[in-house]
């Protein structure tokens, strides 16, 4: 018996149960995958959607925010075009409606440094890799993705890899539906990779995305991962990133969000080897009633690693920006150096920023700190600019751009940095 006492299921939870029962036999993947799905759904079913009394989801109450569960997205047309980041040179892997679509992709298979497989083919063939065994696997959104995962890719990146990879998630349905992409990226020791993940879809549809990226980084590797959320403003997106980083590596992560109605980017990182440097940052620009939650759990499981967590958000209208950052330093992870900062700029009286930094330190020889601010534009700065002849809106735009630019500057890849800066400038231009 495993009956648990809990509230009556919401319509969304009921729909998810019905959808799982109906889809279970048809979802892709063989024995191992089916077992993973069953276990994950069972765990989800015992908990239900997270709500405000679940501490990790305190500010993103899915029980209230997710009114319904959309049906699983049908496969898209076999060919199509990804619109986002077209100017950035990269091997493009399109995941459309939650499935890998080679006809939408532009991936140079001749790069001997990177092998690409369809997710379920990889799961069947790759016996050494345990799908879903990454930080973040105990999260409720993660379980839902495992239960329903519709497709994706697995990439193995070797030392001789050269090109950046762009995994483009596209929703291309004609009516609102849900997609559950799962991707796996394994970066071998000594390899270097710039990995872009983007999300896009129509502005008018309230489609749902629940994505998971498993990222395994070997020793002495370098990975720059940039996630760009440009979903339509009616979309609900939950994106989980689970990362393990080996020893003496460099890991730079950046999450940029302008799109989506309800967005939660969750990033779970474990430093499993000593001497790694990481920079985990993000920038959010939200307006109207957008809700953007960036949640981090950083586990220093090995000593001598440095991590910097730096997030900035600009919140206009009635938008709601959330930053939750938890740094855990395990007992033997001595000489850890972790510093977290989160800054929110509120452009309207009705916008809301919530910052929740947490440090759980079990080692005694560490340097850890955090800082958080939320406030309006500095009126003294605005006056200074205006006194030189710069009109109010332009002065504000310059100051906002400067504020968010300080976060965006962290991105090493020039093309992506410029594309993101341009996107921020466009957002500011639309403010009028």
């Amino acid at each position, binding site marked *: 018996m495993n009956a648990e006492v809990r509230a009556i299921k919401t319509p969304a939870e009921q729909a998810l149960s019905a959808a799982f029962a109906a889809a279970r036999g048809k979802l892709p993947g063989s024995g191992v995958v089916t077992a993973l799905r069953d276990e994950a759904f069972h765990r989800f079913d015992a908990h239900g959607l997270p709500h405000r009394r679940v501490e990790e989801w305190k500010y993103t109450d899915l029980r209230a925010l997710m009114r319904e569960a959309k049906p699983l997205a049908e496969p898209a047309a076999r060919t199509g075009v990804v619109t986002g980041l077209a100017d950035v040179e990269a091997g493009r892997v399109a995941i459309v409606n939650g499935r890998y679509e080679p006809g939408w992709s532009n991936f140079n298979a001749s790069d001997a440094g990177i092998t690409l497989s369809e997710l379920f083919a990889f799961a069947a063939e790759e016996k050494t890799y345990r799908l879903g065994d990454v930080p973040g696997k105990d999260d409720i959104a993660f379980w839902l993705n495992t239960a329903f995962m519709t497709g994706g890719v697995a990439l193995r990146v070797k030392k001789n890899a050269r090109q950046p990879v762009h995994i483009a998630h596209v929703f291309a349905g004609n009516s609102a539906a849900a997609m559950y992409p799962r991707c796996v990226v394994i970066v071998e020791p000594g390899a270097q990779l710039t990995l872009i993940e983007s999300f896009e879809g129509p502005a008018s549809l309230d489609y749902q995305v629940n994505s998971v990226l498993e990222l395994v980084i070997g020793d002495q590797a370098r990975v720059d991962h940039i996630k760009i959320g440009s979903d339509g403003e009616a979309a609900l997106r939950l994106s989980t990133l689970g990362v393990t980083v080996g020893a003496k590596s460099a890991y730079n992560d950046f999450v940029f969000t302008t799109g989506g109605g309800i967005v939660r980017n969750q990033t779970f990182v474990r430093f499993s080897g000593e001497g790694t440097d990481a920079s985990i940052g993000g920038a959010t620009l939200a307006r109207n009633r957008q809700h953007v939650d960036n949640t981090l759990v950083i586990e220093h499981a090995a000593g001598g690693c440095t991590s910097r967590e730096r997030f900035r958000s600009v919140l206009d209208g009635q938008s709601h920006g959330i930053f939750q950052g938890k740094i855990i330093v395990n007992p033997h992870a001595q000489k850890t150096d972790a510093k977290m900062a989160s800054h929110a700029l509120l452009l309207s009286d009705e916008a809301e920023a919530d910052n929740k930094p947490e440090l759980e330190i079990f080692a005694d020889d560490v340097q850890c700190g955090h800082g958080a601010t939320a406030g309006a534009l500095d*009126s003294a*700065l605005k006056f*200074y*600019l205006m006194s*030189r*002849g710069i009109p109010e809106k332009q002065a504000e735009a310059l100051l906002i751009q*400067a504020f968010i630019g300080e976060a965006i500057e962290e991105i090493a890849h020039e093309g992506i940095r410029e594309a993101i800066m341009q996107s921020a400038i466009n957002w500011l231009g639309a403010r009028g």
Partner: protein
Amino acid sequence: MAFLEVKNLHVEVEDKKILNGLTLSVEKGQVAAIMGPNGSGKSTLAYVLAGKDNYKVTEGDVLLNGESILEMAPDERAARGVFLAFQYPVEVPGVATMTFLRTALNAQRKKRGEPEVSTPEFMKLVRDTASRLGISQEMLRRAVNVGFSGGEKKRNEILQMAVLQPELAVLDETDSGLDIDALKIVADGVNRLRSPARSIVVITHYQRLLNYIVPDVVHVLAKGRVVKSGGKELALELEAKGYTQFQGEAA
């Protein structure tokens, strides 16, 4: 009619009355010094001219070229030629000095219906002026005033003034915090901008600056109004006798 006319100006800041019927005229081409003890309202006058928020004008008017500017936003005043060199210039992180200068100049020109400045013309103007003021190329590449010393910030104010070519320049305690060498550089920068087409108001507590920027006229401010006006010799008299002689008069 004088270029700047301040008429019976009464100003409150957070319910505290600071200016108390201040009347003042500055002609085109004139350099007027405004001196006075701490708390006499010198900086308030500067801020009210530039259009800072939270300064409540309860009575009186400020006319620029015959037109009231009190209802105008700061950027509009700037486009009409008002420039304030701040006593405490703020740091503007993330906005490069060159971008700032260019944005400001073009915004003013646009408002006046003039074409944007060409890049070579702009670069030459900034470089030449900067080098005279001892502002390095490296400083120009940095964010506005970020990491600048007090003296560098003041020099940067004069650079902005030289680039924007205002018709009314108000220098608010530009001498404060400057050593003698920096003071000479700043004064030289200001003197180069003396012109029959420009009015300059130099606000200062001490006479020292006026050795280098020699005023045409000196006004003494006490308790929010002008209590005495005279030639440049008035500054020397104040230096010798102090402000106490005026402290009672305004009451």
